[in-house]
């Protein structure tokens, strides 16, 4: 067995967890929700072990290849899924709202499936430009930020469904699946909290990227598409944070800003590499 197989087990755990969370919404069985959550937590522990294992494996490859598993598209997608679960677990420990799992675990599951099925999982040596400690700081801060935005997006979708069905008033109870959703007020609060965590992390991610660019190329900002898109994401969430203090911008509009922000995040992460050209061509080698 190697780390790739453990990653497969992780993917299966997330899949089962996701399905059980949906079953929970349909059946309202607390037991199902608990099993789903245990699978999510267990999957995350295995995920942590598998990342550590892959790290160890990279040092077993001859030729001085060893490095933290954060360097190519496969590794970054796997790490992204890991950070989504991490943020989910933090939110779960604080709010204990199991319905959130049904809207957040799918992001992690999709990431793992894509990585396992379509991406090149070979351990590759680092090209000179990536041989820097900044790589680790940059990737960790960026993806923790992205993951917080993923959670915020999932919660915003729940908010729009809930408010849409309840006619916008906010706290009037609704029947069916919606009864298991946290209240609109709490969803709005989780959305804000997640972005509050994500925004400083994104700022740090952009700053560590700039510091690294300055160290490697002598310029901290060159309006490269990746840099520009990270700034676009930053602008959107900055708008979101200010929207909370502005009448007419709270509630639905804030939820939409959060969803648009995450769409921009995903484009910044993947779209820029797959559609546009620039400095971050890690997709090219794989």
């Amino acid at each position, binding site marked *: 067995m190697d780390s790739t197989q453990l990653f497969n087990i992780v993917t299966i755990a997330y899949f089962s967890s996701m399905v059980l969370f949906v079953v929970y919404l349909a059946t309202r069985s607390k037991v199902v929700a608990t099993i789903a959550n245990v699978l999510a937590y267990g999957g995350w522990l295995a995920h942590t072990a598998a990342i550590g294992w892959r790290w160890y494996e990279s040092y077993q*490859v*001859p*030729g*001085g*290849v060893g490095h933290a598993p954060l360097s190519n598209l496969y590794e970054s997608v796997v790490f992204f899924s890991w950070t989504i679960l991490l943020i989910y677990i933090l939110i779960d420990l604080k709010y204990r709202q199991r319905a959130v799992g049904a809207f957040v675990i799918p992001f992690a599951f999709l990431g793992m499936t894509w990585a396992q099925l379509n991406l090149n999982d070979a351990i*590759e*040596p680092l*090209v*000179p*430009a990536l*041989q*820097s400690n*900044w790589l680790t700081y940059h990737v960790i801060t960026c993806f923790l930020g992205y993951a917080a935005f993923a959670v915020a997006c999932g919660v915003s979708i729940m908010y729009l469904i809930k408010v849409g069905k309840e006619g916008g008033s906010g706290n009037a109870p609704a029947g069916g699946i919606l009864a298991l959703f946290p209240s609109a007020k709490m969803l709005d609060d989780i959305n804000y909290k997640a972005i*509050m965590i994500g*925004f*400083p992390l994104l*700022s*740090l991610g952009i*700053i560590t990227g*700039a*510091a690294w660019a*300055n*160290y*490697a*190329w*002598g*310029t*901290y*900002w060159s*309006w490269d*598409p990746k840099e*520009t*898109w990270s*700034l*676009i994401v930053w*602008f*959107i969430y*900055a*708008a979101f944070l*200010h*929207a909370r*203090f*502005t009448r007419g*911008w709270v509630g639905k509009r804030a939820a939409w800003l959060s969803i648009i922000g995450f769409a*921009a995040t995903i484009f910044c992460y993947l779209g*820029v590499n797959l559609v*546009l050209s620039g400095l971050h061509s890690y997709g090219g080698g794989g």
Partner: protein
Amino acid sequence: MSAKDRNLLTAFWDFFCSLKLTIVTLILLAMTSIIGTVVQQGRAPQDYLKEYSETTFRVLSTLKFTDMYHSWWFLGLLEIFALNLIACSIKRLPRVWKTVREPVLVPAESLYRTLANTEEVVVKGQSVAQVAETSRALLGKTFAAPVVSAEGEKVHLFAQKMPWARFGVYVTHLSILIIFAGAILGSLWGYKAYVNIVEGTATNQVWPRGEEKPIDLGFQVRCDDFSVSFYGGENAGRPKEFKSLLSIIDGGKTVVDQRPVIVNDPLTYKGITFYQASYGTTGEPNVRLRVTERASGVVKELSGRQGQPLPLPGGGTVRVADSTAAFQSFGPAARLEVTPPSGAARSFVVLQKFPEFDAQRGGAYIFSLLDLQQSYYTGLQVAKDPGVWVVWLGCALLVLGSLVAFFLSHRRIWVTIQPLAGGKVGVKLGGSAHRNQPAFEIFFDEVKKQLRDELAA
């Protein structure tokens, strides 16, 4: 100034203070920034004409879409963003400053009505002073040491924690202005340039991007050596390291001697930084060969430049037709061309790593490649940016400021103790937090409970 002018000025000021302007500016910045990631930036006209029709290109360049991040309208948006930041801060800061520096020590009844958390307790059989002392001790123990103020027969207590947390948001705003200032400093007094230096040579000039005239460094940079190394095993051929050995000669003295400069480890001298950016080969490589004449057993060493015919023992010549530093995973290799005194030339490959291999070819000569010396030039990016430290200061403040603004809360508790009719004492308790109210509510309930218990005891 007429009343109309004043109205206009107020309207103007209100416009720049508005939070709606902030949101609209941020969204506009986000949307317009997309343009520059779709249209290539700062290319030559002919590059655009390959991709677009002439009309499209004319529209793009009139709208400055081909260099949009430096266009008047994008910089204008950034200026509105900065003015908005400044105006908002000027408008709100004095009030926050007053809240922090001059807290309300003697709260009026109306203040308690504005607080989200309040509580009233009536105590029997104790004096105002006794109740005040109990309350003071409790606040000091569970929250923060209070300021005690007497007002007639009333006693007021005020305690607070982290009042400076209110400045977090202003530090964040200021940090963005500092980053802008750093960027402006860099663009006024800094430059980005490049230079190619052939191994063994020195230069004192670098070439700024997009300009014709070189910049004089005021000192000499010499490239003593450049080398590329590659990964081995199954990753053979992937570059592992690009390394230049750079020396700096200033005023005739060698001040930096053969400092290795690799990607991600630049060299800075007198505020000018040299980054390993590219490399290339220059001239034909020098090759050293050992040749054994199979018939006589004579061994001879030959050396010369690639392409140059070298004499073989017993007549004829050998020429290095082609060479590479990395032939698949086998390392340095050369393609030799042997021309015997009569007959056709023959060509084959020798590998430096396998000196005995050529014996199996079965020719009249056995060749071994001893050494292959390619002459390189190193391509250096050269940057001078006096604003970069200002930018880092701004970045540090941005992170610190936003952490304080999001996660720290200014919490305040007031207590008013007053005599009531019938020898009773009334205690009024109120508190507020400027962030994270739910957590404060839980804390306040705890303080409330403890105060009741202690006053009842």
